């Protein structure tokens, strides 16, 4: 790498750092993302200019195909499908890092791995310009390992987020034994890849390593309940950064090392912030099984549930002077964010104070609700975070819960045995009347029953969120 290229890489790194910094503030976030994108463009252009001997057909075809697919997916996605898409992008990033290491390893060490007359004793020095051969081999192994775990783990997370894979924790019998055996096999495959000294063995070892790591990725995410997927995606985001960083060691490129490490660390911090919002430790999330234990609880039927019609709900709202909306994933599924906003505006016109309470883990991703409400043009000032609004519920006439469940479950406070005990919730039950708009009495993502349904001051509004709210709105406008 020439000095000039090195310096330009440094500039790109600076763009990334400034970009992430700006991304963490509302006012500058969009600019931050653009800075990061500019950094990426610089990095790509310099690489193309700097490195001689690239196969241009591959480069151009790859850039066009990959860029086209990425742009198409980004344009097409609905805001509600965002969490799955982020998980998918994250996964392919990890896969790319694993492939980079694989291509380097294959290209430099195993040009023709299965031919009879090719059998090097060990990885010769000089394959990597900067590192010794054994360090290089370790970096290859780590890239493939972490990259593959990220890829398959992200795909499972995506499946759980989109409902294609059951959100329930899947616990295999004897999974610790299985994981132990896979762990041993992985170590052996890693040894054969870098240090076995047999060309065919190294090739098979590398493939086995990728397959085993993929299995680990699947087994690691399957036992984790759907409600914890945001944390998982965030952690996998951190992994994909680490994988990129390791790939940087493989090709001896400091830009990959720094940018990857940056994402690895930032992703980990974000993961911690999200765990804290649920009052759980990261270890507790990763061990999994959350939400499965209480399944037996569901058999206890609800008593004293009061169900309500749109007319009744409209009457309640008409009298209200202060209203708080609590959106949840159900709002996203029903695409109800626009009608929520219209209803909010109508109530404001009638002189009520309208606010939106956003639980930090409402929806399938932190900030998910903010994005949806922003899409429907709800003013930023009306969105309140949990700590700021929780004291106000007792002075609020009506709380309208749209497709949220676990984040308003008073079990978190009342029942120390509950799996969600200690999780901060929005104290909707303290308000005068609770209108709970929901399809049925089914439990939420965490799979536990919600005694809020049968509280004295709760009216259950069964139906599709969007239709129900639209009927309320019609009623209000008629009067």
């Amino acid at each position, binding site marked *: 790498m020439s000095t000039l290229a090195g310096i330009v890489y440094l500039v790109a790194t600076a763009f990334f750092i400034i970009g*992430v910094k700006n*991304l*963490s*503030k509302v006012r500058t*976030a*969009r600019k931050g*993302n*653009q800075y990061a994108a500019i950094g*990426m463009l610089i*990095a*790509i252009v310099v690489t*193309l200019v700097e490195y001689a*001997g*690239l*196969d241009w057909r591959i*480069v151009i*075809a790859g850039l066009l*195909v*990959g*860029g086209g*697919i990425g742009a198409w997916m980004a344009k097409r*996605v609905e805001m509600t499908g965002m969490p799955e*898409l*982020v998980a998918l*992008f994250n996964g392919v*990033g990890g896969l*790319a*890092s694993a*492939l*980079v290491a*694989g*291509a380097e390893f*294959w*290209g430099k060490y195993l040009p023709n791995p299965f031919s009879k007359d090719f059998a090097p004793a060990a990885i010769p020095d000089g394959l990597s310009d*900067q*590192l010794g051969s054994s360090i290089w081999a370790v970096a290859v192994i780590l890239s493939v390992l972490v990259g593959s775990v990220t890829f398959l783990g992200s795909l499972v997370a995506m499946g759980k987020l989109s409902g294609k894979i059951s959100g329930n924790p899947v616990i295999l019998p004897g999974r610790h034994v299985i994981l132990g055996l896979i762990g041993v096999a992985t170590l052996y495959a890693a040894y054969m890849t870098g240090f076995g000294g047999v060309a065919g063995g190294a090739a098979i070892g590398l493939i086995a390593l990728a397959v085993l790591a993929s299995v680990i990725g699947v087994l690691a995410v399957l036992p984790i309940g759907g409600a914890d997927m945001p944390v998982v995606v965030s952690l996998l985001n951190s992994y*994909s950064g680490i*994988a990129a960083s390791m790939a940087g*060691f*493989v*090709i*001896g490129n400091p830009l990959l*090392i*720094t940018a*990857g490490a940056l*994402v690895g*660390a930032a*992703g*980990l911090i*974000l993961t911690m*912030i999200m765990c804290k919002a649920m009052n759980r430790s990261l270890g507790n999330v990763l061990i999994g099984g959350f939400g499965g234990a209480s399944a037996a609880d569901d058999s206890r039927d609800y008593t004293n549930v009061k169900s309500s019609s749109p007319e009744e709900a409209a009457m309640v709202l008409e009298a209200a002077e202060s209203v708080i909306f609590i959106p949840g994933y159900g709002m996203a599924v029903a695409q109800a964010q626009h009608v929520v906003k219209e209803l909010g505006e109508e109530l404001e016109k009638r002189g009520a104070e309208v606010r939106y309470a*956003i639980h930090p883990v409402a929806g399938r*991703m932190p*900030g998910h609700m*903010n*994005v949806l409400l922003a899409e429907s*043009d709800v*003013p*930023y000032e009306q969105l309140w*975070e949990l700590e700021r609004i929780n004291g106000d519920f007792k002075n609020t006439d009506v709380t309208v819960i749209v497709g949220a469940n676990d984040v308003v479950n008073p079990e978190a406070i009342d029942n120390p045995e509950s799996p969600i005990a200690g999780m901060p919730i929005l104290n909707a039950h303290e308000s005068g009347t609770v209108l709970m708009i929901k399809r049925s009495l089914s439990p939420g993502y965490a799979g536990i029953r919600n005694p809020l349904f049968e509280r004295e001051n709760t009216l259950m509004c069964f139906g599709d969120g969007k239709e129900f709210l639209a009927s309320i709105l019609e009623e209000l406008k008629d009067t």
Partner: protein
Amino acid sequence: MLVLFLFVFVLAIFTGFELISKVPATLHTPLMSGANAISGITIVGALISANADFGTAAKVLGFLAIVFAMINVVGGFMVTDRMLAMFASKKKKKA
């Protein structure tokens, strides 16, 4: 050289920890998505591994690496921008 790389690696990790200590919940998803796009930096590695001297197997891997890394980069930045554009446009209306 290894020591130098490790230096850079560790310092970058510390920088990452320091960068985002306080983030409003609103920005968690865009930040995750934007950081994720940056991890697509592996595109640089993918381009370098498209070495003309490599054998067919390595070239196939290199090609796939470029495709997947580009999906991550282009898709990631665009989707993040789409999310953030919503915050921005609404602000302007308000002002």
